[in-house]
Protein backbone atom coordinates (compact mmCIF):
# COMPACT_ATOMS: atom_id res chain seq x y z
CA UNK A 1 0.00 0.00 0.00
CA UNK A 2 2.88 2.29 0.81
CA UNK A 3 4.32 1.62 -2.66
CA UNK A 4 1.01 2.43 -4.28
CA UNK A 5 0.48 5.72 -2.50
CA UNK A 6 4.07 6.73 -3.23
CA UNK A 7 3.64 5.88 -6.90
CA UNK A 8 0.24 7.53 -7.45
CA UNK A 9 -0.45 9.83 -4.51
CA UNK A 10 2.91 11.42 -3.84
CA UNK A 11 1.91 14.67 -2.14
CA UNK A 12 5.10 16.53 -3.04
CA UNK A 13 4.85 15.62 -6.73
CA UNK A 14 1.12 16.37 -6.81
CA UNK A 15 1.64 19.81 -5.27
CA UNK A 16 4.51 20.56 -7.62
CA UNK A 17 2.65 19.68 -10.82
CA UNK A 18 -1.02 20.39 -10.03
CA UNK A 19 -0.82 23.94 -11.47
CA UNK A 20 0.57 22.56 -14.77
CA UNK A 21 -2.22 20.02 -15.00
CA UNK A 22 -4.79 22.69 -14.19
CA UNK A 23 -3.41 24.65 -17.11
CA UNK A 24 -3.89 21.52 -19.21
CA UNK A 25 -7.49 21.35 -18.00
CA UNK A 26 -8.19 24.78 -19.50
CA UNK A 27 -6.63 23.75 -22.81
CA UNK A 28 -8.65 20.50 -22.92
CA UNK A 29 -11.82 22.33 -21.92
CA UNK A 30 -11.34 25.05 -24.52
CA UNK A 31 -10.64 22.47 -27.23
CA UNK A 32 -13.63 20.37 -26.21
CA UNK A 33 -16.07 23.28 -26.29
CA UNK A 34 -14.74 24.51 -29.62
CA UNK A 35 -14.83 21.04 -31.16
CA UNK A 36 -18.35 20.21 -29.95
CA UNK A 37 -19.78 23.54 -31.13
CA UNK A 38 -18.11 23.71 -34.50
CA UNK A 39 -18.27 19.98 -35.22
CA UNK A 40 -21.99 19.76 -34.45
CA UNK A 41 -22.85 22.90 -36.42
CA UNK A 42 -20.74 21.81 -39.39
CA UNK A 43 -22.33 18.35 -39.28
CA UNK A 44 -25.81 19.92 -39.21
CA UNK A 45 -24.96 22.21 -42.12
CA UNK A 46 -23.62 19.26 -44.14
CA UNK A 47 -26.71 17.16 -43.41
CA UNK A 48 -28.93 20.08 -44.51
CA UNK A 49 -26.86 20.42 -47.68
CA UNK A 50 -27.29 16.71 -48.30
CA UNK A 51 -31.05 17.00 -47.80
CA UNK A 52 -31.58 20.06 -50.00
CA UNK A 53 -28.64 20.32 -52.35
CA UNK A 54 -28.28 19.03 -55.90
CA UNK A 55 -26.39 15.78 -56.53
CA UNK A 56 -23.01 17.48 -57.25
CA UNK A 57 -23.12 18.89 -53.71
CA UNK A 58 -24.53 15.77 -52.03
CA UNK A 59 -21.82 13.42 -53.29
CA UNK A 60 -18.87 15.34 -51.77
CA UNK A 61 -20.74 15.47 -48.43
CA UNK A 62 -21.19 11.70 -48.47
CA UNK A 63 -17.54 11.15 -49.47
CA UNK A 64 -16.33 13.48 -46.71
CA UNK A 65 -18.43 11.76 -44.05
CA UNK A 66 -17.32 8.29 -45.12
CA UNK A 67 -13.61 9.11 -45.32
CA UNK A 68 -13.42 11.00 -42.03
CA UNK A 69 -15.32 8.27 -40.23
CA UNK A 70 -13.08 5.58 -41.66
CA UNK A 71 -9.65 7.11 -40.94
CA UNK A 72 -8.14 6.85 -37.45
CA UNK A 73 -8.01 10.43 -36.08
CA UNK A 74 -4.38 9.95 -35.04
CA UNK A 75 -3.41 9.38 -38.68
CA UNK A 76 -5.16 12.60 -39.70
CA UNK A 77 -3.46 14.49 -36.85
CA UNK A 78 -0.01 13.27 -37.87
CA UNK A 79 -0.60 14.00 -41.55
CA UNK A 80 -1.88 17.51 -40.78
CA UNK A 81 0.93 18.31 -38.34
CA UNK A 82 3.91 16.73 -40.06
CA UNK A 83 2.73 16.53 -43.65
CA UNK A 84 0.94 19.77 -44.42
CA UNK A 85 3.93 22.07 -43.65
CA UNK A 86 5.76 20.51 -46.62
CA UNK A 87 3.03 21.86 -48.89
CA UNK A 88 3.17 25.24 -47.22
CA UNK A 89 0.31 24.89 -44.70
CA UNK A 90 1.54 25.68 -41.20
CA UNK A 91 -0.78 25.26 -38.23
CA UNK A 92 -0.02 25.24 -34.53
CA UNK A 93 -0.48 21.91 -32.79
CA UNK A 94 -3.59 23.36 -31.06
CA UNK A 95 -5.08 24.37 -34.42
CA UNK A 96 -4.30 20.99 -35.99
CA UNK A 97 -6.01 19.15 -33.16
CA UNK A 98 -9.00 21.50 -33.27
CA UNK A 99 -9.42 21.27 -37.06
CA UNK A 100 -8.98 17.49 -37.29
CA UNK A 101 -11.31 16.61 -34.41
CA UNK A 102 -13.89 19.16 -35.60
CA UNK A 103 -13.91 17.48 -39.01
CA UNK A 104 -14.11 14.01 -37.44
CA UNK A 105 -17.04 15.03 -35.22
CA UNK A 106 -18.68 16.82 -38.17
CA UNK A 107 -18.48 13.62 -40.23
CA UNK A 108 -20.20 11.58 -37.53
CA UNK A 109 -22.67 14.36 -36.73
CA UNK A 110 -23.61 14.65 -40.42
CA UNK A 111 -24.45 10.94 -40.53
CA UNK A 112 -26.40 11.13 -37.26
CA UNK A 113 -28.43 14.18 -38.38
CA UNK A 114 -28.95 12.57 -41.78
CA UNK A 115 -30.30 9.42 -40.15
CA UNK A 116 -32.66 11.62 -38.12
CA UNK A 117 -33.81 13.52 -41.22
CA UNK A 118 -34.53 10.33 -43.19
CA UNK A 119 -36.48 8.83 -40.28
CA UNK A 120 -39.00 11.69 -40.36
CA UNK A 121 -41.96 10.34 -42.37
CA UNK A 122 -42.39 11.55 -45.95
CA UNK A 123 -45.90 12.73 -45.06
CA UNK A 124 -44.38 15.49 -42.93
CA UNK A 125 -42.61 16.92 -45.99
CA UNK A 126 -45.77 16.58 -48.08
CA UNK A 127 -48.00 18.24 -45.50
CA UNK A 128 -45.60 21.16 -45.14
CA UNK A 129 -45.02 21.57 -48.88
CA UNK A 130 -48.78 21.45 -49.50
CA UNK A 131 -49.18 24.56 -47.31
CA UNK A 132 -46.64 26.45 -49.40
CA UNK A 133 -43.52 26.02 -47.28
CA UNK A 134 -40.34 25.78 -49.38
CA UNK A 135 -38.14 22.73 -48.97
CA UNK A 136 -35.66 24.75 -46.88
CA UNK A 137 -38.47 26.05 -44.64
CA UNK A 138 -39.84 22.52 -44.31
CA UNK A 139 -36.42 21.25 -43.27
CA UNK A 140 -35.90 24.01 -40.71
CA UNK A 141 -39.38 24.23 -39.15
CA UNK A 142 -40.81 20.74 -39.55
CA UNK A 143 -38.17 18.09 -40.18
CA UNK A 144 -35.13 19.23 -38.17
CA UNK A 145 -37.01 19.79 -34.89
CA UNK A 146 -38.02 16.13 -35.09
CA UNK A 147 -34.69 14.89 -36.48
CA UNK A 148 -32.61 16.69 -33.86
CA UNK A 149 -34.53 15.04 -31.03
CA UNK A 150 -33.78 11.66 -32.55
CA UNK A 151 -30.15 12.65 -33.04
CA UNK A 152 -29.44 13.82 -29.52
CA UNK A 153 -28.65 10.50 -27.81
CA UNK A 154 -26.19 9.22 -30.45
CA UNK A 155 -24.81 12.71 -30.94
CA UNK A 156 -23.95 13.32 -27.29
CA UNK A 157 -22.24 9.94 -27.10
CA UNK A 158 -20.23 10.69 -30.21
CA UNK A 159 -19.37 14.20 -29.00
CA UNK A 160 -17.99 12.76 -25.77
CA UNK A 161 -16.01 10.12 -27.66
CA UNK A 162 -14.47 12.68 -30.02
CA UNK A 163 -13.65 15.29 -27.35
CA UNK A 164 -11.86 12.60 -25.34
CA UNK A 165 -9.60 12.24 -28.36
CA UNK A 166 -8.09 15.62 -27.47
CA UNK A 167 -5.68 13.41 -25.49
CA UNK A 168 -4.21 12.43 -28.88
CA UNK A 169 -2.85 15.98 -29.07
CA UNK A 170 -0.15 14.92 -26.69
CA UNK A 171 1.77 13.27 -29.55
CA UNK A 172 2.11 16.60 -31.37
CA UNK A 173 2.75 18.58 -28.19
CA UNK A 174 -0.58 20.24 -27.46
CA UNK A 175 -0.30 21.26 -23.82
CA UNK A 176 -3.52 19.50 -22.81
CA UNK A 177 -4.10 17.52 -19.61
CA UNK A 178 -2.36 14.35 -20.76
CA UNK A 179 0.63 16.19 -22.20
CA UNK A 180 1.15 18.12 -18.96
CA UNK A 181 0.83 14.91 -17.00
CA UNK A 182 3.28 12.86 -19.09
CA UNK A 183 5.77 15.72 -18.98
CA UNK A 184 5.40 15.94 -15.21
CA UNK A 185 5.69 12.19 -14.93
CA UNK A 186 8.97 12.07 -16.83
CA UNK A 187 10.47 15.00 -14.91
CA UNK A 188 9.47 13.63 -11.52
CA UNK A 189 9.86 9.95 -12.26
CA UNK A 190 6.55 9.47 -10.50
CA UNK A 191 3.13 8.45 -11.82
CA UNK A 192 1.06 10.68 -9.53
CA UNK A 193 0.52 13.33 -12.24
CA UNK A 194 -1.05 10.62 -14.45
CA UNK A 195 -3.58 9.78 -11.73
CA UNK A 196 -4.26 13.49 -11.32
CA UNK A 197 -4.84 13.67 -15.10
CA UNK A 198 -7.35 10.81 -14.86
CA UNK A 199 -9.16 12.67 -12.09
CA UNK A 200 -9.17 15.83 -14.22
CA UNK A 201 -10.67 13.95 -17.18
CA UNK A 202 -13.38 12.53 -14.97
CA UNK A 203 -14.09 16.00 -13.60
CA UNK A 204 -14.61 17.27 -17.15
CA UNK A 205 -16.34 14.36 -18.83
CA UNK A 206 -18.47 12.81 -16.10
CA UNK A 207 -20.72 15.92 -15.93
CA UNK A 208 -20.97 15.73 -19.73
CA UNK A 209 -22.08 12.10 -19.55
CA UNK A 210 -24.68 13.02 -16.94
CA UNK A 211 -25.76 16.02 -19.02
CA UNK A 212 -26.19 13.78 -22.06
CA UNK A 213 -28.47 11.47 -20.10
CA UNK A 214 -30.53 14.48 -18.99
CA UNK A 215 -30.74 15.72 -22.59
CA UNK A 216 -31.94 12.31 -23.73
CA UNK A 217 -34.89 12.37 -21.33
CA UNK A 218 -35.51 16.08 -21.85
CA UNK A 219 -35.94 15.67 -25.60
CA UNK A 220 -37.82 12.41 -25.58
CA UNK A 221 -41.47 12.95 -26.37
CA UNK A 222 -44.32 10.71 -27.28
CA UNK A 223 -44.30 9.79 -30.94
CA UNK A 224 -47.59 9.97 -32.79
Amino acid at each position, binding site marked *: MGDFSDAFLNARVLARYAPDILQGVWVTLALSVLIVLSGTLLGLALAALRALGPLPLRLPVIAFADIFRALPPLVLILIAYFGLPSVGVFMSSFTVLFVVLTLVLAAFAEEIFWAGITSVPKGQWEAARSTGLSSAQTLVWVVLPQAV*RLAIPPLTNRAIAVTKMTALGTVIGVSDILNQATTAQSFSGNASPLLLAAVAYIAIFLPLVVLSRWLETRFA*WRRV
Partner: protein
Amino acid sequence: MSNALELAGVTKRFGDFRALDGVDLRVRTGELVFLIGPSGSGKSTLLRCCNLLECPDQGAVLLEGRNIAGPGIDLDATRRRIGMVFQAFNLYPHLDALGNVTLALRKVLRLPRAEAEARGHAALTRVGLADKARNRPAELSGGQQQRVAIARSMALEPQVMLFDEPTSALDPELVGEVLSVMRELRADGMTMIVVSHEMRFAREAADRVVFMDSGRIVEEGTPEALFSAPRSERLRSFLARVAA
Protein backbone atom coordinates in the same frame (compact mmCIF):
# COMPACT_ATOMS: atom_id res chain seq x y z
CA MET B 1 -69.72 29.14 -63.41
CA SER B 2 -65.94 29.34 -63.77
CA ASN B 3 -63.51 26.47 -63.37
CA ALA B 4 -61.55 26.51 -60.12
CA LEU B 5 -59.29 23.67 -61.24
CA GLU B 6 -58.88 21.88 -64.51
CA LEU B 7 -56.80 18.90 -65.56
CA ALA B 8 -56.17 18.49 -69.27
CA GLY B 9 -54.64 15.32 -70.69
CA VAL B 10 -52.74 14.55 -67.50
CA THR B 11 -50.51 11.48 -67.73
CA LYS B 12 -48.31 10.12 -64.98
CA ARG B 13 -46.07 7.05 -65.11
CA PHE B 14 -44.19 5.33 -62.31
CA GLY B 15 -41.63 3.28 -64.22
CA ASP B 16 -43.65 1.14 -66.60
CA PHE B 17 -46.85 1.64 -64.62
CA ARG B 18 -49.23 4.17 -66.12
CA ALA B 19 -50.91 5.64 -63.02
CA LEU B 20 -52.80 8.32 -64.99
CA ASP B 21 -53.55 7.99 -68.67
CA GLY B 22 -54.66 11.25 -70.22
CA VAL B 23 -57.13 12.41 -67.61
CA ASP B 24 -59.38 15.42 -68.25
CA LEU B 25 -61.31 16.88 -65.32
CA ARG B 26 -62.96 20.24 -64.76
CA VAL B 27 -63.95 21.33 -61.27
CA ARG B 28 -66.20 24.37 -61.03
CA THR B 29 -65.89 26.93 -58.25
CA GLY B 30 -67.84 25.77 -55.21
CA GLU B 31 -68.25 22.25 -56.55
CA LEU B 32 -67.65 19.09 -54.53
CA VAL B 33 -66.25 16.35 -56.75
CA PHE B 34 -65.98 12.87 -55.37
CA LEU B 35 -63.40 10.45 -56.79
CA ILE B 36 -64.11 6.75 -56.41
CA GLY B 37 -62.54 3.62 -57.82
CA PRO B 38 -60.63 0.49 -56.89
CA SER B 39 -57.23 0.83 -55.24
CA GLY B 40 -54.51 1.49 -57.79
CA SER B 41 -56.98 3.17 -60.12
CA GLY B 42 -55.12 6.51 -59.91
CA LYS B 43 -57.43 8.49 -57.60
CA SER B 44 -54.73 9.51 -55.16
CA THR B 45 -52.23 10.18 -57.93
CA LEU B 46 -54.77 12.41 -59.64
CA LEU B 47 -55.31 14.31 -56.40
CA ARG B 48 -51.56 14.65 -55.84
CA CYS B 49 -51.15 16.00 -59.37
CA CYS B 50 -53.62 18.77 -58.54
CA ASN B 51 -51.14 20.43 -56.17
CA LEU B 52 -48.09 18.99 -57.91
CA LEU B 53 -46.94 16.76 -55.10
CA GLU B 54 -46.62 14.55 -58.18
CA CYS B 55 -45.58 16.30 -61.38
CA PRO B 56 -47.50 15.09 -64.42
CA ASP B 57 -45.38 13.67 -67.24
CA GLN B 58 -47.77 15.21 -69.77
CA GLY B 59 -50.75 17.50 -69.68
CA ALA B 60 -51.75 20.70 -67.92
CA VAL B 61 -53.08 21.54 -64.48
CA LEU B 62 -54.96 24.84 -64.55
CA LEU B 63 -55.70 26.76 -61.37
CA GLU B 64 -58.23 29.45 -62.23
CA GLY B 65 -57.21 29.21 -65.87
CA ARG B 66 -53.46 29.33 -65.37
CA ASN B 67 -51.26 26.27 -66.04
CA ILE B 68 -49.37 25.51 -62.83
CA ALA B 69 -47.63 22.41 -64.23
CA GLY B 70 -45.62 24.45 -66.72
CA PRO B 71 -42.25 26.16 -66.35
CA GLY B 72 -41.81 29.50 -64.60
CA ILE B 73 -44.41 28.84 -61.90
CA ASP B 74 -43.70 29.61 -58.23
CA LEU B 75 -44.80 26.24 -56.87
CA ASP B 76 -44.72 27.27 -53.21
CA ALA B 77 -46.93 30.30 -53.84
CA THR B 78 -49.31 28.10 -55.85
CA ARG B 79 -49.50 25.26 -53.33
CA ARG B 80 -50.65 27.50 -50.52
CA ARG B 81 -53.75 28.28 -52.61
CA ILE B 82 -54.58 24.56 -52.76
CA GLY B 83 -55.23 22.92 -49.41
CA MET B 84 -54.62 19.24 -48.86
CA VAL B 85 -55.84 16.85 -46.17
CA PHE B 86 -54.10 13.48 -45.87
CA GLN B 87 -55.23 10.02 -44.84
CA ALA B 88 -52.58 9.89 -42.09
CA PHE B 89 -53.29 13.50 -40.93
CA ASN B 90 -49.54 14.32 -41.07
CA LEU B 91 -49.72 16.81 -38.22
CA TYR B 92 -46.38 18.10 -36.95
CA PRO B 93 -45.86 16.14 -33.69
CA HIS B 94 -43.52 18.72 -32.11
CA LEU B 95 -46.06 21.56 -32.38
CA ASP B 96 -49.39 21.98 -30.61
CA ALA B 97 -52.64 22.29 -32.57
CA LEU B 98 -52.33 26.07 -32.86
CA GLY B 99 -48.67 25.75 -33.91
CA ASN B 100 -49.69 23.31 -36.63
CA VAL B 101 -52.27 25.74 -37.96
CA THR B 102 -50.13 28.88 -37.73
CA LEU B 103 -46.80 27.59 -39.11
CA ALA B 104 -47.59 28.37 -42.75
CA LEU B 105 -49.41 31.57 -41.79
CA ARG B 106 -46.23 32.83 -40.18
CA LYS B 107 -43.58 31.39 -42.50
CA VAL B 108 -45.38 31.53 -45.85
CA LEU B 109 -47.82 34.44 -45.49
CA ARG B 110 -45.37 36.08 -43.04
CA LEU B 111 -48.15 37.27 -40.73
CA PRO B 112 -47.08 38.64 -37.36
CA ARG B 113 -47.54 36.17 -34.50
CA ALA B 114 -50.64 37.83 -33.02
CA GLU B 115 -52.43 37.96 -36.36
CA ALA B 116 -51.45 34.39 -37.24
CA GLU B 117 -52.71 33.15 -33.88
CA ALA B 118 -55.99 35.03 -34.26
CA ARG B 119 -56.52 33.35 -37.63
CA GLY B 120 -55.38 30.03 -36.21
CA HIS B 121 -57.85 30.26 -33.34
CA ALA B 122 -60.63 31.16 -35.78
CA ALA B 123 -59.81 28.09 -37.90
CA LEU B 124 -59.70 25.79 -34.86
CA THR B 125 -63.02 27.25 -33.70
CA ARG B 126 -64.58 26.42 -37.08
CA VAL B 127 -63.61 22.76 -36.68
CA GLY B 128 -64.85 22.78 -33.06
CA LEU B 129 -61.43 22.53 -31.40
CA ALA B 130 -60.93 25.97 -29.87
CA ASP B 131 -60.25 24.34 -26.50
CA LYS B 132 -57.52 22.06 -27.92
CA ALA B 133 -55.27 24.84 -29.25
CA ARG B 134 -52.47 24.01 -26.82
CA ASN B 135 -52.65 20.21 -27.16
CA ARG B 136 -50.00 18.28 -29.06
CA PRO B 137 -51.23 15.85 -31.76
CA ALA B 138 -50.36 12.86 -29.53
CA GLU B 139 -52.91 14.14 -27.01
CA LEU B 140 -55.73 14.25 -29.56
CA SER B 141 -57.98 11.53 -30.95
CA GLY B 142 -57.74 10.60 -34.62
CA GLY B 143 -60.86 12.57 -35.46
CA GLN B 144 -59.56 15.62 -33.62
CA GLN B 145 -56.20 15.31 -35.37
CA GLN B 146 -57.87 15.23 -38.77
CA ARG B 147 -59.96 18.29 -37.85
CA VAL B 148 -56.75 20.13 -36.87
CA ALA B 149 -55.31 19.11 -40.24
CA ILE B 150 -58.40 20.54 -41.99
CA ALA B 151 -58.03 23.75 -39.96
CA ARG B 152 -54.36 23.92 -41.00
CA SER B 153 -55.38 23.90 -44.68
CA MET B 154 -58.41 26.12 -44.22
CA ALA B 155 -56.51 28.85 -42.38
CA LEU B 156 -54.62 29.63 -45.60
CA GLU B 157 -57.97 30.33 -47.29
CA PRO B 158 -57.26 28.13 -50.30
CA GLN B 159 -59.19 28.25 -53.58
CA VAL B 160 -59.50 24.46 -53.65
CA MET B 161 -59.20 21.78 -51.00
CA LEU B 162 -58.07 18.23 -51.74
CA PHE B 163 -59.04 15.37 -49.41
CA ASP B 164 -57.09 12.11 -49.77
CA GLU B 165 -59.13 9.44 -47.97
CA PRO B 166 -59.63 11.73 -44.96
CA THR B 167 -61.57 9.21 -42.90
CA SER B 168 -59.86 5.93 -43.87
CA ALA B 169 -57.51 5.90 -40.88
CA LEU B 170 -60.26 6.68 -38.36
CA ASP B 171 -62.22 4.45 -36.04
CA PRO B 172 -65.83 4.28 -37.30
CA GLU B 173 -67.22 6.34 -34.43
CA LEU B 174 -64.83 9.21 -35.29
CA VAL B 175 -65.71 9.42 -38.99
CA GLY B 176 -68.85 11.50 -38.38
CA GLU B 177 -67.11 14.49 -36.81
CA VAL B 178 -64.73 14.81 -39.79
CA LEU B 179 -67.54 14.49 -42.32
CA SER B 180 -69.59 17.15 -40.56
CA VAL B 181 -66.66 19.58 -40.78
CA MET B 182 -66.44 18.80 -44.51
CA ARG B 183 -70.19 19.35 -44.83
CA GLU B 184 -69.80 22.82 -43.29
CA LEU B 185 -66.94 23.66 -45.62
CA ARG B 186 -69.13 22.72 -48.54
CA ALA B 187 -71.96 24.85 -47.20
CA ASP B 188 -69.52 27.78 -47.09
CA GLY B 189 -68.86 27.31 -50.79
CA MET B 190 -65.41 25.69 -50.67
CA THR B 191 -64.36 23.92 -53.86
CA MET B 192 -63.43 20.37 -52.88
CA ILE B 193 -62.06 17.24 -54.52
CA VAL B 194 -62.49 14.22 -52.29
CA VAL B 195 -61.04 10.73 -52.63
CA SER B 196 -63.00 8.52 -50.26
CA HIS B 197 -64.88 5.28 -49.79
CA GLU B 198 -67.67 6.99 -47.82
CA MET B 199 -70.37 6.29 -50.43
CA ARG B 200 -73.19 7.57 -48.25
CA PHE B 201 -71.36 10.86 -47.83
CA ALA B 202 -70.83 10.99 -51.60
CA ARG B 203 -74.52 10.42 -52.24
CA GLU B 204 -75.49 13.13 -49.78
CA ALA B 205 -72.85 15.84 -50.37
CA ALA B 206 -71.23 15.42 -53.78
CA ASP B 207 -72.24 17.52 -56.77
CA ARG B 208 -70.53 15.06 -59.04
CA VAL B 209 -69.00 11.60 -58.69
CA VAL B 210 -66.09 10.50 -60.86
CA PHE B 211 -65.34 6.80 -61.22
CA MET B 212 -61.76 5.91 -62.14
CA ASP B 213 -60.18 2.66 -63.18
CA SER B 214 -56.70 1.90 -64.58
CA GLY B 215 -55.69 5.55 -64.65
CA ARG B 216 -58.70 6.73 -66.62
CA ILE B 217 -62.03 8.32 -65.88
CA VAL B 218 -64.57 5.66 -66.78
CA GLU B 219 -67.78 7.37 -65.83
CA GLU B 220 -68.91 10.60 -64.18
CA GLY B 221 -72.16 12.23 -63.25
CA THR B 222 -74.43 13.13 -60.36
CA PRO B 223 -74.33 10.73 -57.38
CA GLU B 224 -77.90 9.78 -58.21
CA ALA B 225 -77.05 8.85 -61.79
CA LEU B 226 -73.85 6.95 -60.94
CA PHE B 227 -75.05 5.02 -57.95
CA SER B 228 -78.57 4.26 -59.16
CA ALA B 229 -77.93 3.74 -62.85
CA PRO B 230 -74.28 2.85 -63.52
CA ARG B 231 -73.70 2.46 -67.24
CA SER B 232 -70.40 0.60 -67.34
CA GLU B 233 -69.86 -2.95 -66.22
CA ARG B 234 -66.73 -1.92 -64.30
CA LEU B 235 -68.63 0.59 -62.18
CA ARG B 236 -71.44 -1.92 -61.58
CA SER B 237 -69.04 -4.55 -60.29
CA PHE B 238 -67.14 -1.95 -58.23
CA LEU B 239 -70.34 -0.76 -56.55
CA ALA B 240 -71.38 -4.33 -55.89
CA ARG B 241 -68.04 -5.06 -54.21
CA VAL B 242 -68.17 -1.87 -52.12
CA ALA B 243 -71.73 -2.60 -51.01
CA ALA B 244 -70.86 -6.18 -50.03
